[in-house]
């Protein structure tokens, strides 16, 4: 059964810059994200992927169009109100991980919970669980500088899921990783999307063709417009098998 969407964007237009130098980066984009789905947003450089991701994550506001996130219309919200929506409903994964180098893996995850105003001993347990979920139960006290790129990206995934957001937005999550680590991260995102306990809607912006096999849905964007949508045949079953398999592997590690 199709789940109701947690994020709906309608006719999103975004102009960057002002006056004669203004560029229309998005030209009427509409999409929705549903829990349990891993959606890939693919397109060439300059097609508007990152701008769209920023708008979906309530970092940028659209010039025109509407965005509804977890039932909240974002129209007219100020920067603080948008930040409030982000901290409660959006988890971000960045291309360069964007971990805090002076904090351990566990502290990096706890920080995301602290930002949400969640404190106390239960928070440590939740951060540790999130790290165990991504297979890093044995690296909780490690600093990012002492971890591989794949491990750092998994910490970033743990940080994104720790607060149980409705939507997880990933910006080129495999771009800085080798094939093995890239696959591991995508498997993880696939598992996170399909986990029946906390069904997240996951959107990953990517160039990487290796990621296609993990997708439930692929949106193609070109020149600021969604130009196509694919649903890989039988993708769901393959992904779920992969995810369950990977989860067992991570659990065994931690």
């Amino acid at each position, binding site marked *: 059964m199709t789940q109701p969407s947690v994020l709906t964007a309608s006719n999103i237009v975004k102009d960057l810059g002002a006056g004669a130098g203004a560029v229309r980066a998005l030209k009427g984009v509409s999409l929705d994200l549903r829990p349990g789905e891993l959606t890939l947003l693919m397109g060439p450089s300059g097609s508007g992927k990152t701008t769209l991701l920023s708008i979906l994550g309530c*970092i940028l506001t659209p010039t025109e169009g509407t965005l509804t996130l977890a039932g909240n219309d974002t129209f007219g919200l100020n920067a603080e109100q948008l*930040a*409030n929506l982000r901290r409660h409903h959006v988890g971000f994964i*960045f291309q360069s991980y*964007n971990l*805090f180098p*002076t904090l351990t893996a566990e502290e990096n995850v706890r920080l995301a919970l602290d*930002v949400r105003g969640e404190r106390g001993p239960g928070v440590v347990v939740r951060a540790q669980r999130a790290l165990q979920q991504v297979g890093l139960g044995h690296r909780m006290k490690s600093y990012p500088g002492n971890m591989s790129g794949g491990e750092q990206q998994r910490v970033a995934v743990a*940080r994104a899921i720790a607060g149980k957001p409705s939507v997880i937005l990933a910006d080129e999550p495999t771009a800085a990783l080798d094939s093995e680590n890239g696959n591991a991260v995508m498997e993880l995102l696939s598992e996170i999307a399909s986990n029946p306990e906390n069904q997240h809607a996951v959107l990953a912006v990517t160039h990487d063709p290796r990621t296609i096999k993990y997708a439930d849905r692929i949106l193609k964007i070109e020149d600021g417009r969604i130009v196509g949508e694919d649903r890989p045949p039988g993708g769901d079953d393959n992904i779920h098998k992969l995810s369950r398999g990977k989860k067992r592997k991570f659990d065994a590690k931690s």
Partner: protein
Amino acid sequence: MTFILAFRNLFHDRVRLAVTLIGILFAIVLIAVQLGLYLGARQIIASTIDHAKGDIWIMAYGNKNFEEAQPINQRARFVALSTPGVAAVIPMITSFVDWKKPDGGTATIVLVGADPEDGGLVPWDLVDGDIAALGARDAVIIDKTYLEDLGASGLGSTAQINGSRVRVVGLTDGIRSFTTTPFVFTTFSRARSLLGLGPDQITYGLVQLAPSANPDAVRAALQERLPSEQVLTKAEFRNRSLNHWMMSTGAGVALIGGAILGLIVGTVIVAQTLYSSTKDHLNEFATLRALGSSTGYIHKVILSQAALSAAIGYGLGMTIALLIIYVTESMALPLPIVMTPGLAALLFGLTLFMCAISAIAAISKVTRIDPAMVFSR
């Protein structure tokens, strides 16, 4: 977590932390010494008035401070004695005069004449000799800080004032003068004689009130009865002396100015290092913002960094300041540096203020941060 993040950011770059702490330390030491000197100066200026056991002072019009006193007629003392509420009026003499050293040369002194048995102004903190010895024919008491300045070696040393021989019969410790002109204590009549004043001349009438008398009411009554003299309460005379030496001479302004300079230099150094630290961690702050933190949360991180710097810098700065005070105290310098719990608390407040002000530039930088920059990295 804000505190942990602030702590780690601060200690991550040890060189920058050292520069920050040196800036705060420099400011604290400079402010502590300047304000300590200011307090020390105030203490010295007011010490004779504070130690005089009287509630109201009668003096010549235009008297700006304790040391520079003009003579008045002793008649004022008798008029005061007949005023309701007055229990006693102790005559005193104060004047600058030359002290001729036994081995040649002269030094200017402030001769203070008051009879110890009157209980008006008795030399305090006596460390050698006896107050009762002031009864001897040529006796004076001096402070051991000025032994060298006065060419004296201790008890029994002699000198001349206006051609009359005087002999040191007592030594005090810490009765210093703001002008660095030594106080020399003797009896009232001997002072009058040494200064060549007439039998009806005094410089001060120190009024002691009856137990239930109201100082302001008695002061008003005295002023009415003594229109040719100035009548001031103890607090008024104290303030007048302080105002003259600290403000009119510019000495206090210089000391406070030095303290303000320290505050400014410290603020600039801390602001610069805090700003550059914030700039270096800008991507982390943008990440925090992208994760949904409020601006208040980020401000808390920066202010925690500033507060931590303040606390550590204050600890180090105060340690050095106290060390300087200890060393200068042992050297018995003419102007002491005073540290009081109130000044220590004020310094801590100033340090926090300085660091909070320093954080403004950094806060302004992160307030304008665009969280979208996390995608461009």
